[in-house]
């Protein structure tokens, strides 16, 4: 006979021990969550000091400043063009983890187009307004400020599409072009337009556009990320994450503050993009795309181009991004491990930052002073 007592009692004790451990772990998670929710952190704004050098409608053109509060004017200017349907600070996420900050630290005079949050009247904004209006005036403003005839442009996601179209229309003002996870082939499976097409959705109404609510834009992104489109799935993910250290959780929170903070989108812009570049129309690959009344001729793009895709990108599938070589044959194609956001601001983003700085620093082209 065992001294520890009868078997059923020992089983009961073991169960109670296990329950106690479960209780402790659950409580520790809640305490960690409380700490993260009540500790100030870097959320919702760019990480690098910046000055606003131009405003138009909701757009703010930011110029990054150095440690002394002065703009860097050593190496040629670089304009970052993020997607207008999300917040700009993904490219300037955290001190020490900022793509734009990294490029600035390499000596470039860095600018970021913060498109802001559209108001109801901005539902009438179309592709021409963004390309020939906001992006073109950002470039003109930078050229005027720095007395350069051409600058570097780095476009991310839909911002890359705007940058590509702009560069074809005004090639003399672009020194080097970087396209990050910018989908070119609208017929490649995956991505929001393709899913909408497969679901038989007509897309937004061009003539009577609405301001597409942020929650709806968010739901489209969630469709592409299995598990993120149910509250239960998200809560379960968060609960698992609460085992991480508070410092790591703060980083997760910074990223979540970008991922979950989408902005409303102008319906007319979305309608035009879907009609012109979406599945079937595929206007970039078929070279039929127009901006306003202008036909876009990609043969005009003679400046060096770097296009970067992400292996696990569900928003802009890598095959659709790499297809840029069909319309810009001299483009350098780089495919990196990671997802749509991870390659720009994740823990493995350093590979992209380093290559971008090398690319932007290469060669001197006409128009550069």
């Amino acid at each position, binding site marked *: 006979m065992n001294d520890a007592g009868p078997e059923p009692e020992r089983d009961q004790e073991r169960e109670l021990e296990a329950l106690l451990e479960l209780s402790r772990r659950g409580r520790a998670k809640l305490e960690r969550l409380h700490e993260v929710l009540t500790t100030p952190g870097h959320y919702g704004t760019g990480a690098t000091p910046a000055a606003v050098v131009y405003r138009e409608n909701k757009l703010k053109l930011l110029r990054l400043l150095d440690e002394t509060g002065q703009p860097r004017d050593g190496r040629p200017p670089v304009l970052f063009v993020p997607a207008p349907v999300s917040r700009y600070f993904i490219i300037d996420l955290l001190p020490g983890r900022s793509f734009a900050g990294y490029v600035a630290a390499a000596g470039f005079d860095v600018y970021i187009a913060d498109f802001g949050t559209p108001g109801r*009247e901005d539902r009438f904004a179309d592709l021409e307004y963004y390309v020939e209006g*906001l992006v073109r005036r950002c470039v003109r403003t930078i050229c005027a400020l720095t007395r350069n005839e051409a600058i570097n442009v780095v476009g991310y996601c839909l911002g890359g599409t705007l940058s590509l179209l702009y560069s074809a229309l005004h090639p003399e003002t672009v020194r080097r072009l970087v396209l990050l996870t910018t989908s070119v082939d609208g017929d490649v499976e995956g991505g929001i337009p393709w899913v909408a097409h497969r679901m038989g959705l007509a897309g937004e109404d061009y003539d009577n556009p609405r301001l597409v609510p*942020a929650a709806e834009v968010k739901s489209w992104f969630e469709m592409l990320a299995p598990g993120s489109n149910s509250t239960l799935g998200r809560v379960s993910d968060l609960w698992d994450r609460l085992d991480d250290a508070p410092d790591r959780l703060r980083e997760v*929170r910074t990223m979540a*503050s970008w991922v*979950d903070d989408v902005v409303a989108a102008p319906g007319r812009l979305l309608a035009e993009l879907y009609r012109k570049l979406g599945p079937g129309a595929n206007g970039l690959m078929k070279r039929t795309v127009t901006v306003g009344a202008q036909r876009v001729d990609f043969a005009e793009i003679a400046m060096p181009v770097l296009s970067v895709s992400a292996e696990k990108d569900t928003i802009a599938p890598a095959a659709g991004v790499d297809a840029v070589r069909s319309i810009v044959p001299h483009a350098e194609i780089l495919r990196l491990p990671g997802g749509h956001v991870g390659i720009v601001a994740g823990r493995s983003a350093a590979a992209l930052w380093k290559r971008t700085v090398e690319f932007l620093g290469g060669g001197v082209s006409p128009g550069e002073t």
Partner: protein
Amino acid sequence: MADDKTTTDPSLIERWLTEQQQWQRTFLTYMDSMVKNDDFLVHLGNALRGSLLAGKAYPTQPPPSASAPETPSDDRLDQILFALRRLEGEVHDLKLTLDELKGERKQVPKKTRPPKPREPQ
């Protein structure tokens, strides 16, 4: 919050009691933050939706009744407002062009200024 430590190993029942007290403390900490910090409620609400989004509430679809139908006059006003926004940009374009012209004018005389005729000696 660290668990209380004692020199002798407490029994299972004692450890359960301690754990209950810790839960009460955790609960009170949450209650305290809810009362003292309005943002905490927003952040906690986000966490209950599985998001660590800071600074604002997790985006949700407004109920259909919340969005008032747009009247034709609202629509026209929005169109006018957006047209004004476009004009704002075009005015900036004009200003940039004027600055360029001024810059060119300043440069041109320097480049094309004829040399002064030499004084007869």
